[in-house]
C-alpha cells in the first residue's frame, strides 16, 4: 500500500498523458466522423446508382472488417506495399493514421444510424413541407433534421461510448494512449516496474469519461423530449 502511494503521483501523471491522447483521438474522430457520416448517408441514399453502390460497398468493407486490421492496413500499407511510408514513424504520423482509420470506421457506422434516422421521419413531413412551398433544403434543416436527431440520439450515444473504449485499439500501431501508458509500468517505466495496478486503474478514467457522456446524452434526450 505504501509503495502504491509512493508510485501514485508518477503513475497518475503518466496516465493523464496517455488519457490526453485517448481524448484527442476521441474528439478528432467525432469532429471528423459526424459530418463525414452524413455525407456517406446521403451517398448511400443517392438516386445516382453508381454512387449509392460505391458507398454501400465501402460501408460493407469498413463495417465488415475489424478496426484493428484497418489500423494496421492504413498505417503499414503505404510503406509495406507502396514503398512510401507516408505517415512516418513519429508520434504525429501514428496519431494521424489512427485518426484517419477511426474517422472512416465511425463515419460508416454513423452513416447507417443517420440513414435510419432520416428514413424514419415520415414521408408526410416532406410532403407537408413541399405543399407549403418550402425548398428541399429548408425541409431538411427546418423540418426533418431535429426529428432525425431525436431518433438517432440513443443509438449515437451507444456508439460514442463504444468509441471511447475503442480508442485503446490504436495501441496496435503504437499510439501511446492510456492503456499503453498503464501497461508500461508492468514492463518497467520511470523506475516503476512490475506494477500491475496502473493498468486496472485506467478503467477509472474510462468510467468517469463515459459517466460524463452518459449524463450529457441523458440531458440531450430530455431536452428533445418536448415533442414526439
Amino acid at each position, binding site marked *: 500500500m505504501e509503495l502504491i502511494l509512493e508510485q501514485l503521483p508518477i503513475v497518475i501523471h503518466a496516465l493523464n498523458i496517455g488519457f490526453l491522447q485517448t481524448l484527442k483521438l476521441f474528439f478528432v474522430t467525432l469532429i471528423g466522423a459526424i459530418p463525414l457520416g452524413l455525407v456517406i448517408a446521403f451517398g448511400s441514399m443517392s438516386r445516382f446508382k453508381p454512387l449509392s453502390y460505391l458507398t454501400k460497398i465501402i460501408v460493407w468493407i469498413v463495417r465488415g472488417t475489424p478496426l484493428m486490421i484497418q489500423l494496421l492496413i492504413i498505417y503499414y500499407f503505404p510503406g509495406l506495399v507502396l514503398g512510401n511510408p507516408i505517415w512516418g514513424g513519429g508520434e504525429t504520423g501514428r496519431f494521424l493514421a489512427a485518426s484517419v482509420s477511426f474517422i472512416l470506421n465511425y463515419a460508416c457506422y454513423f452513416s447507417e444510424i443517420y440513414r435510419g434516422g432520416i428514413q424514419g421521419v415520415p414521408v*408526410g413531413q416532406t410532403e407537408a413541407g413541399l405543399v407549403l*412551398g418550402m425548398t428541399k433544403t429548408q425541409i431538411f434543416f427546418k423540418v426533418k433534421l431535429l426529428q432525425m436527431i431525436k431518433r438517432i440520439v440513443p443509438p449515437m450515444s451507444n456508439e460514442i461510448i463504444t468509441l471511447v473504449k475503442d480508442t485503446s485499439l490504436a495501441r496496435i500501431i503504437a499510439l501511446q494512449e492510456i492503456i499503453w501508458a498503464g501497461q508500461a509500468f508492468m514492463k518497467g517505466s520511470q523506475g516503476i516496474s512490475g506494477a500491475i495496478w496502473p493498468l486496472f486503474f485506467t478503467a477509472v478514467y474510462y468510467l468517469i469519461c463515459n459517466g460524463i457522456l452518459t449524463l450529457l446524452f441523458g440531458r440531450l434526450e430530455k431536452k428533445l423530449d418536448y415533442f414526439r
Partner: protein
Amino acid sequence: MSILEVEHIQKSFEHTEVLKDISFSLEKGQVLSIIGSSGSGKTTLLRCLNFLERPDSGIIRVNGESLFDSSASSRKNEAEIRKKRLHFGLVFQSFNLFPQYTALQNVMLARELLAKEQPDYKSRKKEIHQEIEAQAEILLKQMGLADRMQNYPHQLSGGQCQRVAIARALALQPDILCFDEPTSALDPELTGEVLKVIKELADTKTTMIIVTHEMAFARDVADHVIFMDDGCILEQGNPIDVMEHPKEERTKQFLARFTQG
C-alpha cells in the same frame, strides 16, 4: 372564367392506370366534393393538383394560367414548381403537423421562410415577423384554438391537430384549398368540430376541393359533386342530382352502402 380548369389528366403507376382522362372545372368561391370508393383515384387527383405527383398527360390551369401542360414539355425547375403549388393548399388525412413546433409556429413557419426571400426582409425583419404572427393568431382563433397556440402537436387532440393543419394551409392564402379525407383519421366525436370549421370556410366563400367519405357533409357543403370510380369521373353535377338521383348504376350501389350503413 373558372378559377380551376383540369383537362384530360392521366396518371399511371407502374402498369396500373390510376387516373384515366379526368376533366373538370371549378368556379371561384365554390366547394367541390369528390366522392367514391377507396382506390378510385381521388387522392391521386388531389396529389397531382398539389404537384406531389406529376401527371403523365393533361393540362392544369388556374385563373387561366397554365400550371401544368404535358405537351409543353419544358422541365420546370424547383423554384417554379414551388411558386405554382402555392396556388393550392392541402390538408392531409394524417395532419402531418411538424411535431417540434408549437401550433403557432406550425402556422407561421412557411410564411416566415417565404418572407426571407423578399428583398426588403432584412430592413423590415421585426415588422414582418409581427405581421405573420398576428395573422397566424387570427387564423388559430378562427379555428377555435385561441388557448392552444403554445401547445405542441402531441398535446393536442386529433381534431385540434387537424384544425391547426387547416390554419397552416390557410396562412399561405391559397387560391384553392384541398382536403384529403380530413376526418378519416379522427374518432367520430372529433369529426364534427373539423367539419364545422370547413363549413364556416365554405360560408365565407373559400374555394375548396374536398375528398371525403362523409356523404351527408358533402351534400350539405358542396356546390358541385364528382363521383369517381376506377380512375374515371362517372358522374358529376349539383349534390342533389348526383346524390339523390344518380343516373349510373355504380353510383347508386356506392351511395346505397352509405345510406344503409
